[in-house]
């Protein structure tokens, strides 16, 4: 009961947070919060594949970046819509995940990590080389941010508060859907596959189909996060497809705790927050971040969420 109350309070605080902009804090912090929410969604999407399906992906930036590029390109083409870019971002990323899954589904562990890595890196190279469409390494500025009418209200995404609300609501929806899938029979079958493919197959679970579908769901959600990012930043660049981002999102999920979904939020707050703090405080933030990642892997790989629960 107390836990419910606290959760409701936290949700309320998150919902009304934008009202404090200009009075309690500057828009910078709201932008940062939006960014954290998007990263948390991305980390949860990865966690779904990694923590529940046991699919070690080292190429999730491919799904995130493709979603971002698809959304940005759609926005440049038809500026007035909001749902179409997000939808196309999700579909493009899910389609890529389907393709990767088709190629990779019977490779395991490190081999799967490499195949996902290779696919993401392929798209990174395409984004750099196909200058006519992607703008090459300079990236692609978005068009004007969309403004849509929704149930009588105007959602104007050039207003940072509206952007925050959109990200919050969609990320929460993403979390809820993932949570629902995890506790469904499909989720239970995934966990069985993670624990032992042989035994799962022996009791009649179609292992390949489950893994493929898990990757598609995870990829689609990553694409949603990517699409949100493209609208939020109004800019996409090949870094969104680069393997460094793939590694970082895995670290963020691990930092929070794999197989928890909301661990991604904890990891995102720490990683994104720390990066912001460090980069204002010193130019050498990469050293600190790297050392922190090493320390996290060495001493509490089960993640902060479980560390706190102990």
């Amino acid at each position, binding site marked *: 009961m107390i836990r419910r109350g606290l959760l409701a309070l936290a949700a309320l605080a998150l919902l009304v947070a934008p009202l404090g902009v200009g009075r309690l804090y500057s828009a910078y912090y709201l932008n940062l919060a939006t960014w954290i929410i998007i990263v948390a969604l991305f980390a949860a999407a990865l966690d779904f594949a990694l923590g529940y399906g046991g699919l070690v992906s080292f190429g999730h930036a491919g799904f995130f970046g493709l979603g971002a590029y698809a959304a940005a390109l759609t926005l440049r083409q038809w500026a007035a819509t909001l749902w179409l870019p997000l939808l196309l971002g999700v579909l493009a990323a899910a389609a890529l995940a389907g393709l990767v899954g088709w190629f990779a589904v019977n490779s395991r562990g490190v081999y799967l990590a490499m*195949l996902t890595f290779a696919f993401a890196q392929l798209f990174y190279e395409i984004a750099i080389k196909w200058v006519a469409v992607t703008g090459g390494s300079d990236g692609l500025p978005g068009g004007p941010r969309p403004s849509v009418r929704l149930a009588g209200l105007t959602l104007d995404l050039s207003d940072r508060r509206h952007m925050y609300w959109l990200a919050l609501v969609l990320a929460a929806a993403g979390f809820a859907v993932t949570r629902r899938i995890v506790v469904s029979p499909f989720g239970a079958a995934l966990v069985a596959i993670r624990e032992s493919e042989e035994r799962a197959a022996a009791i009649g679970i179609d292992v390949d189909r489950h893994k493929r579908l898990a990757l598609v769901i995870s990829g689609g959600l990553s694409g949603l996060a990517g699409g949100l990012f493209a609208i939020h930043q109004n800019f996409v660049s090949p870094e969104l497809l680069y393997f460094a981002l793939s*590694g970082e999102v895995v670290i963020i999920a691990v930092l929070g705790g794999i197989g928890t979904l909301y661990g991604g939020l904890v990891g995102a707050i720490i990683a994104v927050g720390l990066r912001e703090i460090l980069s204002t405080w010193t130019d050498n933030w990469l*050293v600190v971040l790297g050392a922190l990642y090493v320390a996290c892997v*060495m001493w509490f*790989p089960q993640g902060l969420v479980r560390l706190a629960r102990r």
Partner: protein
Amino acid sequence: MSLEAILTQLLMGLTVGVNLVLVATGLTLVFGMMGVINFAHSALFMLGAYVGLVVTRGLGDFWLGLTAAPVAIGALGAGVERFLLRPLRERYPESHLLPLLLTFGLGLFFEGAAKMLWGADVVSLARPPALSGALTLGRVTFPAYWIFALVAAAALAALVWLLVERTSLGLSIRAATQDATMAAVLGVNVGRLNTIVFGLGAGLAGAAGVILGTMTSLSPQMGGGVVLDAFIAIVIGGLGSFTGAIVGALLLGQVQSFGVALLPEFHTPLVFLVMAVVLVLRPTGLFGAGDRR
């Protein structure tokens, strides 16, 4: 393409390919023995180049720099294996993910450290005076340094080949790659061997860093592209296979050299496509063992 151009590209590809062998050897041996993809390898390559730079500038002698780099980076690699990777693998023997993440974090740390120590800008390491000229073979002229880079890397690679294929240490390495538990039962100190192999691979990457760094330029991100190529080479050749690494690296050197000349826009996506196709048709690569971890 004229004959001269083809010869030039061929030699360029061979030079890059032989150096890729040095980089790929560490990656593939470490994977073969420990099942770990070392994402810090590019950072070790880069640190090697900077050690070469510092020693060369400090002592005024390129050859000292070229010698110091593999020794320093080899020691660093051995330390990483002994004090970070080994405890981690002992604590979580089942995890594929954690060692990978450890090396990823280390890579970021090293890159950050290089930025802190030497700045983010591109710098160049001067070629030794003896190698600054050009060599003319028939109708084709090459920079003398290319020939040196080719010969030096080939000599090092040959030494490693002798070590792996012809010494008792190499026999232990090959045995542990096939089955570490069985090798340990037969009296091989696998723990120490892991440290040696990781250090050896790191040292080779450090040497390649100096050789290739002098050929092009140095920056904290310089390792990314080269190690990615080495990585693709060992995937094509078969992870864990030393022969596969050599074949894959030499092949990739040529693909890169001619690819840049003939298909400047699309050669890299093409390389990845080749890799994906190889993985699908033969998931363990051209020379890989049947075991799929």
